[in-house]
């Protein structure tokens, strides 16, 4: 589904990504972790072309987001993305947030879009909030609406950019629960997150990144099972993150 082949990216002379190679198969859940500034957010933003890359090759469902002729909006419509700060559109009601792209991008009729939106709101447990505005919802509720919004386009795969790191602790679980459910339903997911409990529970594979490189790329069992086998930097990172 998603294949990185020796992908690099520079900001000036600074290497944000340095020869990253990995692949995410259909239905796989891959968690990307690593210290801040390691390039993990940048890595997933390449997938839907929010950031360009300048070396190597990346394909998403066979399409290269960096190629000249690629219709990026069309590719993005097939790739759902979640953000740290939810990024619901504050001037639109919850329902309008969910129908906007269906009508404007997929050209669905208003009736179909509304029906799909309400079904997905129900799925994330927020059907009663359809007519509220994002500012009237809690952070956890907003992020669940954002997940529903991404799902309205029936994405092939979904990207998560630290979806719970801006949430109050008591709201983290409700968002993780929705993500676990998605994973169990077979969604292809690439998640940047520090939630190691989530990673242990649903991830098929873990990528550990540092200084723009993928240092570890192994199954979740191997990653958490035998820390002694991991690189020293991964061990140091894990000991800090698992300490609390």
């Amino acid at each position, binding site marked *: 589904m998603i294949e990185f082949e020796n992908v690099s990216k520079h900001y000036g002379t600074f290497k944000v990504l340095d020869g990253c190679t990995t692949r995410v198969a259909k239905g796989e859940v891959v968690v990307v972790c690593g210290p801040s500034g390691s390039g993990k957010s940048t890595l997933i933003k390449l997938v839907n072309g*929010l950031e360009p890359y300048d070396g190597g090759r990346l394909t998403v469902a066979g399409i290269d987001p960096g190629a000249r002729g690629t219709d*990026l909006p069309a590719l993005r419509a097939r790739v759902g993305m979640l*953000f740290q*700060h939810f990024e619901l559109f504050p*001037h639109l009601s919850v329902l309008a947030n969910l129908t906007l792209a269906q009508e404007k991008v997929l050209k669905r009729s208003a009736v179909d879009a509304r029906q799909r939106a309400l079904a997905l709101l129900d799925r994330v447990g927020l059907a009663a909030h359809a007519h509220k505005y994002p500012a009237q919802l809690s952070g956890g509720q907003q992020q669940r609406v954002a997940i529903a919004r*991404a799902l309205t386009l029936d994405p092939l795969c979904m990207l998560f950019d630290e979806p719970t790191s801006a949430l109050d602790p008591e709201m983290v679980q409700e968002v993780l629960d929705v993500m676990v459910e998605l994973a169990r339903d077979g969604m292809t997911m690439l998640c940047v997150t520090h939630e190691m409990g989530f990673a242990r529970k649903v991830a098929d594979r873990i990528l550990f990144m540092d200084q723009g490189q993928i240092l570890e790329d192994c199954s979740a069992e191997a990653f958490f099972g035998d820390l002694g086998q991991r690189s020293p930097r991964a061990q140091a990172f894990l000991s800090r993150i698992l300490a609390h």
Partner: protein
Amino acid sequence: MDFSVIIDNLGYFTWGAYPDGPLGGAALTLLLSLLSGVAAGVLGLAWGIALVVSRGWLRWVLVGVLGFLRAIPVLMLMFWAYFLLPILFHVDVPALATVVCALSLIGGAYLAHGVAAGIGSLPAGQWAAAKALGLRPGQVLRLVILPQALPIMLPSFLNQWVSLIKDTSLAYVIGVGELSYVATQVSNRVMVHPVQIFLFVALVYFLFCSALQWLAHRLARRVPSRSHR
């Protein structure tokens, strides 16, 4: 104080010589304000968006042109257009068009930076989220960015429109018969009531500007600004 001079000339203050002659007075002031207000708004919006989306030399050209327009007095632009263009290019520029163009170019240049700042005040994540949903660049602006940025820009539009209403009075230097011009005419003719006449003129400008402010307030209440997070 004897205000009969106002009553006696009320028609002239309001319409100028219309319908026997060209439209003038307060009506012309209103017309000039409306036309140049709309044109300045459109230009300001277009230039402001261009400021945000353009890169490289194109952006520097734009910044240069806007800087130039903001640096020259409206009066000078009117003079140039009205007296210089006919000499240089042998084109006859109608006085009304000159005024509207000068006011909208300069007003638009002022607004452009307000528009750019309004757009820039939105978190980058809103652009990213809109793009991530597959919206095309024009749709991102029209459906997501501008509906949020316009209410933020309203105060700077209001400022610009208020000062534009007052700047229409500069049109009198090229003989456009708007309110200040007809007031000066009447004052020169009757000679003895300048205080009454110019108090009245001030009142009319005050009413126009206050009406605009009142309208903007109502508009702002209809579009409640919603906090982003």
